[in-house]
Structures are given as structure tokens and as C-alpha cells.
């Protein structure tokens, strides 16, 4: 066997080793929490609204939706809701819907809480916490911005400022 064949064999073996070792290397951590859903179709579950009537995220398909998961026991949720109300009023005419989804509580508790804060945007009551699970909430509040086609465009863990809310919806509003 001449020297050329030896080199070819070494190269062949080296290439195989590189391929197999690379196959076992883990990737860097991808996005976690609600941000991991970016680019995917937003899941929807039938629940009820504050009046006890059926409602779901899917009812708002065709609108830009700011989906906000919250609960009455959550202080940051309470702090954030006035800004969500402000966003709702400012952008409603531009095709943006703020949709609150209470997580795990009785409808009456959610209704009393929303009323006490003067919330006018639609609120759903998800006592089985389906939205929280599927949107990978790491805590409350969690906010997911969904475009008019029903695709998740951004996801946020924790309370947002009004400026952050605007920054999340403005590009979608401008694109429509």
C-alpha cells in the first residue's frame, strides 16, 4: 500500500470522527419561555369571558393581539394593567386588541379585580391554566404579541413598560 493510500485512509478516518463527534455536541441553549414560541402559530383554547360566555384567542384572528396572562394575586400584573389599558385605548382603532387571560382563578375573582382597575379590554378566564402552560409562562405576568395571521411575533416574561409595549406592536401596526 503506497503512501497516498495511507493518507487517504487517515483523512477518511478523521472525517468520520469529526462527523460522529459533532453529532453528539449539544447546541447552545435556544430561547426559553414565551420567546421560544416566536414564529409558531399561536395556540387557542376555548374558555369563558368575564360574563361566563365562551371565548378564545382564536376569536381575534385578523387582529394584532397582545395576549397578557395574569392573576389577581400577582403584584406585577396589577402594576402593568393600567399601561395595558392605555395601550388598548391608543391602538384599538389601529387593529390591535389587548386580551387579558386570567390564570387559574374563579371568574368572579377575575371580574372583581378587572373592574376595580377599570379595565375595558376583553378578559378571558382560564381556570385550567391551559394558556399559561402552552405559552411556556415562566411567571406572571407573561405577554405574547401575535400578528394578524395568528403567528407569535414576540414573547415577554415579566411586566412591561408602556414604551416596551409600543415597541412590540408598532412594527406590526406599520406592516399592516
Amino acid at each position, binding site marked *: 500500500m503506497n503512501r497516498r493510500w495511507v493518507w487517504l485512509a487517515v483523512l477518511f478516518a478523521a472525517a*468520520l470522527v469529526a462527523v*460522529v463527534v459533532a453529532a*453528539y455536541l449539544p*447546541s447552545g441553549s435556544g430561547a426559553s419561555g414565551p420567546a421560544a414560541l416566536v414564529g409558531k402559530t399561536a395556540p387557542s383554547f376555548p374558555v369563558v369571558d368575564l360574563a361566563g360566555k365562551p371565548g378564545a384567542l382564536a376569536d381575534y384572528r385578523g387582529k394584532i393581539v397582545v395576549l397578557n396572562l395574569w392573576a389577581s394575586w400577582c403584584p406585577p400584573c396589577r402594576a402593568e394593567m393600567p399601561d395595558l389599558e392605555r395601550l388598548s385605548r391608543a391602538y384599538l382603532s389601529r387593529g390591535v386588541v389587548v386580551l387579558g387571560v386570567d390564570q387559574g382563578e*374563579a371568574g368572579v375573582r377575575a371580574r372583581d379585580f378587572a373592574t376595580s382597575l377599570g379595565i375595558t379590554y376583553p378578559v378571558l378566564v382560564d381556570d385550567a391554566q391551559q394558556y399559561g402552560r402552552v405559552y411556556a409562562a415562566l411567571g406572571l405576568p407573561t405577554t405574547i404579541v401575535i400578528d394578524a395571521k395568528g403567528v407569535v411575533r414576540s414573547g415577554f416574561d415579566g411586566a412591561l413598560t408602556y414604551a416596551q409595549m409600543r415597541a412590540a406592536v408598532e412594527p406590526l401596526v406599520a406592516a399592516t
Partner: protein
Amino acid sequence: MIGLFTGCAAIALAVLLEIALPGQPIYQYGWYNALLATAFVICAVRARTLAREGAAPAPALLTLIAGTAALTIAGVANGLFAPAPQVVIGSPGASVRVDDLRGTLAFPLAGTDPVVRLERNGGVTEIGAGGFRIAAAFALSQVPRQVLAVDVTDARGAHLTVTQPNGSAFLSPVLTMPTQQNIAGMLLPFDSFAVPAAHRVVKAVLFDRRHAEMLKAMPPGGTGGAALFSVSDEDDRAIPHGIGLAPDGATIALGGLRLKGLAISYPAVRIAAVPVPIVLALGMLLLLGGAIWCRLRKP
């Protein structure tokens, strides 16, 4: 020549077994991988001798040995470089990122078709009950487990949010019971959750039917398993009358909460490394091609 074929076939069989029976501890033993490597060296030396003797065309023998080398490298790398097998436990409806797979496992909602979906590189692989699927260099199979779906209301019956600050899904009311607790010599599934609105933390231990029957404190009405709940405050101080055993599906009042637990079977996913399939396929192709070439062509 027969000896060489037998040696190469033995190596191929050993490596193929690593796919047929993935995740066996033996694959990671040093002596096992040393044996594979030694077998290959013996085959390579024998092939060189046969080539010099003119028993078969040298390129044919080289092809045969290249295939065996690919299989050996795939097998040894699986033993030495691949991560140990793991079981990924996800909450119903949750998506769990698995870095080894470079993808995400999407777990089904409870009560729906128990198919876990692996989403990677824009494609979806469905992992159903029974059998296994190969994705990248890993075999994925379902492992059924008992989990506990909890429902919590206050004394007036108003629903309360359940959170799992340390669980795989923060807002899931399904406890995946990832750890075990030793109670009276029995190793039992254990998990905990919080009820922030009531400032309570609840620990839960799941008893299956067999273990529940061993409990003299089992309340009437239980026909299946049971859940032992222990309610404490947010600083982990015990609450008076905060410990109780609830038959599966029954409600129990403890520490100001009304708790109900329902044990359900739910899939987890076992992930075990296998030899890299593309290298394995290449190796088998070269090995078989080389063997046929050796038999068909005389030098």
C-alpha cells in the same frame, strides 16, 4: 478470507445492536470499546495480509476495511462521546427544549392522543407509545409515568391558581412527580406546588393502588391510589390540620384549601444515543460492497 468476513460482520453486528438496543450501559464501558477497536485492528491487519497474498483485489479489501472502520468509529464514538441516556419529563401542553437533540419536545395535553412531538430543523417527528424513533444520533421512546393533576379551590369553592416555581412548567396544575420520597420504606413519587393567592405551599406524595392498600389511614371511598398532601405556609411552616390523605379523585379540606388530586398516566420521553445513522449507513454500504467485490473479482 472467511475469518476477515466474520470479524467485520461481528463488528457490524455489535454496532447495529447499539441501535436495536439503545442506551445500554455496556456501550460506555472502556473494555467494550477497546474490544471493538482491537477487533478492527485485527481485521485491518488481516486484510493487508490478504491483499499482499493476492487473495482478493486490494481496492476491494480497502473498501471492506473502510466500511468496518466507519462502523467501528460510529460505535466507539457512541460509547465514548455520546451523552448518557436521559428521561425528559414534560407537563401536559408544555414544550421542553432539549439541547442534545437541538430541538423541542412538545408534550400533549392530558386526555388527548398521547403522542409527543419532536420539533427540530423545521420538521416534526411523532413519538407514539411503543417502539422508538431515531432523530439525529438519538433514539427516542415513550416512558409512561404516573402524574398527579391537582385542582385547588378556597373554602367557598372559588378556583385558585396553581403554580410550580420549581417545576418544568410554572403554570401547570399537573405535577410530574420527578423525585421520590421514602416513606416507611416505600419509594413514592413526590412533587410540590404553590397556591400564591392563599400563600400556601403544598407537598404531594402519590400512592399507587398497591401502596395505598398498605395504608391503614386510607379513608373510605378509595378504590384506586391516593395522594398525601401536606400544606405549609410560604416560609415552609406547617399549617395546623394541614396533612391528609385523599383517595384518587376525591376532595379533601386542608389548611384552608380544598384539594383534589387525580393520578393519570402520562408519557415522558427517554433519549438514548445511538451510533450516527449516516456514518452507520455509509459503513454498511462500504462493508457489503467490499465483501461482494472480494467474492466476485479475483486479483
